């Protein structure tokens, strides 16, 4: 009895508020746009019985998905999302790895504090962290002021509302996701492995490449997925920092929905976004699984 209740309550909640909404998205993506509220047809009318259900299925089609292939805005934004996600993941890795390495090699009594400093941004508003770069990167922003004052440039650089700003924003906000798994891999590493490598004739640098990097591989992979997957669907960063020239699919979906009020197309965009995400998510799960098995 108790067990049934324990399972039933969260199960019912998730069915009603996670699975069903998602099926609705799927359904609407196969429907036509209409200028009513809700702005799509058909709606499933159960009062008409079997005929209603038949009519409902008869009107479903892949029109919206065909439309997505005809307008190059969509596939360009998908590609651009993937490209931005891939490049920014690489950048985050390049910035995050030395920090994680430094943390793992810091004296024991520093490490809790360093950990806290990495986690602290998690708890502060994402929106505010992205916003903080607007003042830095704008044409009359702090970065340009400093560069002008140093005499490195004579004209202010345009960084805000370009892809560069998007990359900076992504690296900044997703950095902790990269640092933490790499740090935990490096921290678990037995220091005597490096001594053994040196003892067997390695220089410091070759010991790093031959031992440290392969042994932090799982952390690197986990970190990369933790950045790559959410960045593909990112909306806030490209909207605030990227300007109109940066195409990302999360932003397109948002605009399709709120500005064009084309719900069926927005739903189709969502369905394809999810299909694109399935590959990295499954790969990530497999990697996690493999690591769990290796740990045992």
């Amino acid at each position, binding site marked *: 009895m108790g067990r049934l209740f324990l399972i039933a309550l969260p199960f019912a909640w998730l069915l009603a508020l996670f699975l069903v909404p998602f099926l609705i998205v799927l359904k609407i993506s196969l429907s036509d746009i209409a200028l009513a509220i809700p702005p799509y047809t058909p709606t499933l009318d159960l009062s008409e019985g079997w005929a209603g259900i038949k009519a409902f299925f008869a009107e479903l089609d892949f029109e919206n998905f065909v439309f997505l292939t005809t307008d190059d805005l969509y596939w360009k934004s998908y590609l651009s999302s993937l490209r931005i996600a891939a490049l920014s993941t690489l950048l985050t890795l390049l910035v995050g790895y030395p920090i994680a390495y430094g943390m793992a090699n810091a004296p024991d009594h520093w490490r809790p504090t360093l950990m806290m400093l990495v986690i602290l941004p998690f708890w502060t508003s994402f929106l505010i962290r992205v916003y903080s770069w607007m003042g830095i990167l704008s044409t009359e922003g702090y970065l340009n002021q400093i560069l002008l004052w140093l005499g490195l440039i004579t004209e202010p650089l345009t960084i805000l509302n370009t892809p560069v700003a998007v990359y900076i924003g992504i690296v900044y906000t997703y950095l902790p996701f990269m640092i933490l798994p790499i740090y935990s891999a490096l921290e678990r590493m*037995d220091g*005597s492995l490096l*001594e*053994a490598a040196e*003892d067997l*004739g390695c*220089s410091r640098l070759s010991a790093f490449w031959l*031992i440290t990097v392969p042994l932090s591989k799982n952390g690197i992979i986990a970190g990369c997925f933790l950045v790559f997957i959410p960045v593909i669907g990112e909306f806030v960063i490209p909207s605030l920092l990227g300007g109109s020239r940066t195409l990302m699919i999360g932003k397109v979906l948002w605009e399709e929905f709120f500005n064009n009020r084309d719900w069926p197309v927005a739903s189709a965009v969502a369905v394809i976004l999810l299909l694109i995400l399935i590959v990295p998510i499954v790969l990530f799960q497999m990697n996690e699984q493999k690591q769990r098995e290796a740990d045992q």
Partner: protein
Amino acid sequence: MGQTVFEPWNDPEAKPLIQFKNVTKRFGDFTAIDNQTFDIYEREFFALLGPSGCGKTTMMRMLAGFEKPTEGTILLGGQDIAPIPPNKRAVNMMFQSYALFPHLTVWDNIAFGLRRDGKSKEEIAARVEEMLKLTRLTQFARRKPHQISGGQRQRVALARSLAKAPKLLLLDEPMGALDAKLRTATQFELMDIQEKTGTTFVIVTHDQEEAMTVASRVAVMDNGRIIQADTPARIYENPNSVYVADFIGEVTIITGRAYKSGAGYEIHYAEGTAPFYAESETGFGDGETCHLALRPEKVAISAERPEARRNAVQGEIIDIAYLGNLSTYHVKLPTGQMIKAQTANTRRLSRRDFTWEDRVWLSWSDTAAVLLRE
């Protein structure tokens, strides 16, 4: 022709492989090694023995190059090794944790050091196979370290550190992670390999039995100093201090005052009792404090007072530790001292002569005990 005894430390002509000259190592305020001077000879199996924190690991890490002496010099084959980094030294180390690279196979672990030397593929393959054969690991060559047993991992670590044919091999608690049975077998295997390869071994251990079994010489350490460095037999039979006597094997220490008497000394240990008598290599002034170190197996236990022995004393059995092959009796003297006596259990248990609370006589010969100053 009879085989000459391997005792280079007694040969003034012999050139030591390693020389510690007034070596001191400090970590901040803490002195890990305190002004030590000693030699290790080629082909020796040298054991550094002591409790944790005595400095034995620091000694080894200085040889490997992971630590530099604060003062003094360490010579390897007559050459100061301080400026040589660990990756350039002809010294290899077998780590306590084994430090096997988890992402490489057994084969690649053994080949790791050879590859760093830029040897040809054929040379590396031949040497790895040789090492695999030596350590009986050939069939595990393609496995990863987590796919083999603890004993096999230990042999991989040994093979890896031997592969480069170092002049000196350092072993840091090599058997610390093995269970008791495997440890004994491995000790003999290690001695065998040392003999075959002719490499000089320096082993760090806190297990006195292990040190006694494998080593040609044992250095007993405490607080950053070597207290005594000698052959296992001399360490056991002729300890130079209470610390060494107590650290190696079981011992009863009775403190008293020494008075010269004939060839030896009378030791007065309590008011109103007959003194013990012992011959001694070390000399004592009359009335000087001395410690009588008595090994339990040299103490005989009997119901009647033995006639022939000068050292005989009566007491009561407080405890019996039955160890299978041996039994150790803890006998309390009327004066309060506790003396341990050991007998071999050649008879079945049911016919044991003595039991708890029995009053028995303990006796030992004039040469059984060692007199120590400190």
